């Protein structure tokens, strides 16, 4: 399966996302923000970083990149799209998912190994998990505070669009401890923590079993691959 990873000016975790796809058994395909070309991929990842230096608002300028028009069309046609951190912010700016992001409540950049609970295990990117399962993946952001108006929060909570919630510590002041959301169809998922940094033994978060051995993030990528195979 070919999975596209879009590089924007200021993308940082694009190569990490490509590695994650490869380790999950997929074929990563580099996509460029300035092209109108999805190169025949079957799923798309918008990686983390500081596209356009977070100028204006995180993700705001990137969401108007040429390729984003194609990404939006593909997403609306049902293609799986995953937005990680800055990619999550782009998805919100492009209105593919509800909500928005502001500066962390404590005003600092924060990097930590973050526990999450999986709230929705039916999406294209989460079906390898079970609902209620706890996972630990790295989090690192400055503008990660998820916000939405009360009506939207009520709706996404009611309709199962909250995909992940922070457990133990809410690291940025997000409403309802929301760490990730999905669109109603379940093909577009955005989250603030970084699954692509927990895919390889020796380079992930510490676990009780061993240092740096956490690979909980790999399931995001195997989920989308296996669902594609099942189709």
């Amino acid at each position, binding site marked *: 399966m070919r999975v596209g990873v879009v590089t924007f*000016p*200021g993308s*940082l*975790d694009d*190569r*990490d996302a490509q*590695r994650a796809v490869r380790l999950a058994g997929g074929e990563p395909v580099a996509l460029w923000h*300035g092209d109108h070309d999805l190169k025949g991929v079957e799923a798309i990842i918008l990686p983390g*970083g*500081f596209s*356009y*230096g*977070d*100028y204006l608002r995180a993700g705001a300028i990137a969401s108007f990149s040429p390729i984003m028009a194609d990404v939006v069309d593909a997403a609306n046609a049902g293609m799986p799209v995953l937005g990680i951190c800055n990619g999550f912010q782009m998805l919100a700016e492009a209105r593919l998912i509800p909500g928005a992001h502001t500066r*962390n409540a*404590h005003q*600092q*950049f*924060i*990097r*930590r190994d973050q526990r999450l609970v999986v709230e929705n295990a039916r999406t294209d990117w989460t079906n390898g998990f079970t609902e209620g399962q706890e996972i630990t993946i*790295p989090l*690192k952001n*400055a503008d990660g505070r998820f916000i939405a108006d009360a009506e939207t929060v009520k709706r996404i909570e009611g309709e199962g669009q909250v995909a992940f919630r922070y457990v133990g*510590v809410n*690291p940025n002041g997000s409403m309802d401890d929301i760490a990730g959301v999905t669109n109603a169809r379940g093909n577009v998922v955005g989250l603030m923590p*970084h699954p*692509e*940094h927990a895919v*390889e033994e*020796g*380079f992930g978060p*510490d676990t009780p079993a*061993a*240092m*740096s051995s956490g690979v909980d993030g790999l399931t995001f990528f195997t989920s989308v691959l296996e669902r594609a195979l099942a189709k």
Partner: protein
Amino acid sequence: MTDQTDRAPHDAEMIDVRPEGHVPDTVANAAATPDREQPYGALGLKADEYAKIREILGRRPTSGELAMYSVMWSEHCSYKSSKIYLRQFGQKVSPAMKKNLMVGMGENAGVVDVGGGWAVTFKVESHNHPSYIEPFQGAATGVGGIVRDIISMGARPVAVMDQLRFGDIDAPDTARVVDGVVGGISFYANCLGLPNIGGETYFDAVYQGNPLVNALAVGVLRHEDLHLANARGVGNKVVLFGARTGGDGIGGASILASDTFSSGGPTKRPAVQVGDPFAEKVLIECCLELFRDELVEGIQDLGAAGISCATSELASNGDGGMFIELDNVLLRDPSLTAEEILMSESQERMMAVVRPEKLDAFLAVVAKWDVETSVLGEVTDTGRLVINWHGEEIVNVEPRTVAVDGPVYERPVAYPSWIDALQADSASSLPRPTGNAVLREQFLELLGSPNLADKSWVTNQYDTYVLGNTALSFPDDGGMIRVDEETGLGFAIATDANGRYCQLDPKQGARLALAEAYRNVAVTGAVPAAVTDCLNFGSPEDPEVMWQFSQAVEGLADGCLELEIPVTGGNVSFYNQTGTRPIHPTPVVGVLGVIDDVAKRIPSGWQDEGDNIYLLGTTSLELDGSAWAGVVHDHLGGRPPAVDLAAEAQLAQLLHAGGDQSLIAAAHDLSDGGLAQALAEAVMRFGVGARVWLGEVLERDGIDVATALFSESTGRVIVSVPREDDVRFRGLCEGRGYPVARIGVTDAQSGSLEVQDVFTVSVDELRSTHRGTLPARFGATIGE
């Protein structure tokens, strides 16, 4: 040598004069008006230096030439006070030290062959003075500058680390500086996508008003991708690309705009540069693509002295001639004068030398990354650097006289009047505790003291994960990065400097810094291979400071020769003093090591139940300059611990062999705070407790309990060894004759550190003591 950083502050920054209708000073004008007075003193040049410039040129310099000479002959760019000492790093070398050295001192950064066709380039540099004036931007642009040095070698930057020293933690201004510096590093390096994998954070009143902000960067390249910055090939184009040139970071340039001085001119320009990490990130990717597609002959970064430095250094290192039309520089502020353009230290700029037939392809790549660019001129064979402005010649110099053949000083050196008395005041006469309650109390006091306390408040603001190759980072002794995903080949890196030791004895202090950085790399399982240094000192015009400097350089150079690892580059920062009180000499030493497979790395903490804990090395009464003396007795005196570099090398070989055979589960260096601190850290790393007994060590070494716990004797490491590997490990130690004593066993169930017959402290109490100190001053650590 192109780093923008601190130099002697001078009054010129405060005077800004803008004449009406400024007319540039041309070469013809300079020849015709030999007697015109020039403000060389306000630019930091001495009368004899100015006379030398006139002698070189055979006339007075134009204002543009004076601008170039003044910045390039500054202490920071010319190394005029340190040069005669730094030569030792090039002279004291053995054949073994040259074996893996691909590029040594004098280039933007040193390059080391790490095997498999891979090379690593690394360097540490200071950004001290800007970081005090404006902590956030000062620290941010410090990261930016050192990263551009790495890029200009043709390497991809893969990691950074910072060596930070602040004033007393309780001083009123410290929180401002800490918050700004850490925020600036976090902002810039995170936005560049570089993992921050280690560093140092110290607090001491001697750094009040003189914080030290050193930044280290590491890059990785294939051997064939190595590039040196030089301007070769007559007719090749000289291209400036990246951010536009603005008025930021100009020292005294505005003075040159006029030959009459008055205060209160129309503009005040900040002398601290402002950083844009997004522009730098784009520049990194753009440069790597230019190198990959072989579109450039060389790339030089612009740092200190901006275009003055880049043009004169490129020309000096190449065919010797260059012609530049300064009007082609893209400006943020069109009102800049020619002199200001020559001196501007605007960030995120690069200068490339491009063959004419490759220029179109070059411009296409630069356009792809939305980077602005302009062709300034070309390489010539005239042997002269000629710069035109509005069609008139404003600079015509031999580039080497600007960039290479600057003044060299043999500054007066004086043995400090106070040092004998300081050395006579040994900590060994301080009362050492014997009662268990006091030992426990002092242990916890040390654990929570600012310099031994947990630094998560700082490091939680840094990204360690980005790029996906971080095998070790804080709080382990060294950072480690995988270089080759196929084979697991990687490097480890650690830095160290103990200003207290150096104050007592700068030569020994430098050797101690080297020994500890070397040991910190060795405990990760890597083999130490090369050294970089950042030598932070007071004013070179103080003969006692020059003595400290000369001693430290000698100690470091001799130490490197003894360990047979070369110094590949570094930086000197003088004038770190307020009034007549200099900082403690602080020679930061960074050691780079190589490991065949990062999967064999050794962490600093215990993870498993029932592993045997061994203490390697012996302990003697060495509390002079120690954390114990400082924290418990507010004492600094005596002579720092002894260093046996041959033993350190032997210890490193032992650790490497043990790591390579997977006999060692954890290894942690003993340094500040001694055995007690090391044990606590090894417990806290993964929350696995231990039972420890000191009897054998007390008897063998003839010491008391307080000395065993708090002495800072060198050449010591604690390791944990799985039971099944015990016999092989002991055999390894005995075969090498290295002193070893079994001092305990790990205990995952107990939830505590028990030093038998002395004290027991729970993991929770260790952690709350260790973690509380920084948040109490600087605000909560997020998520704790």
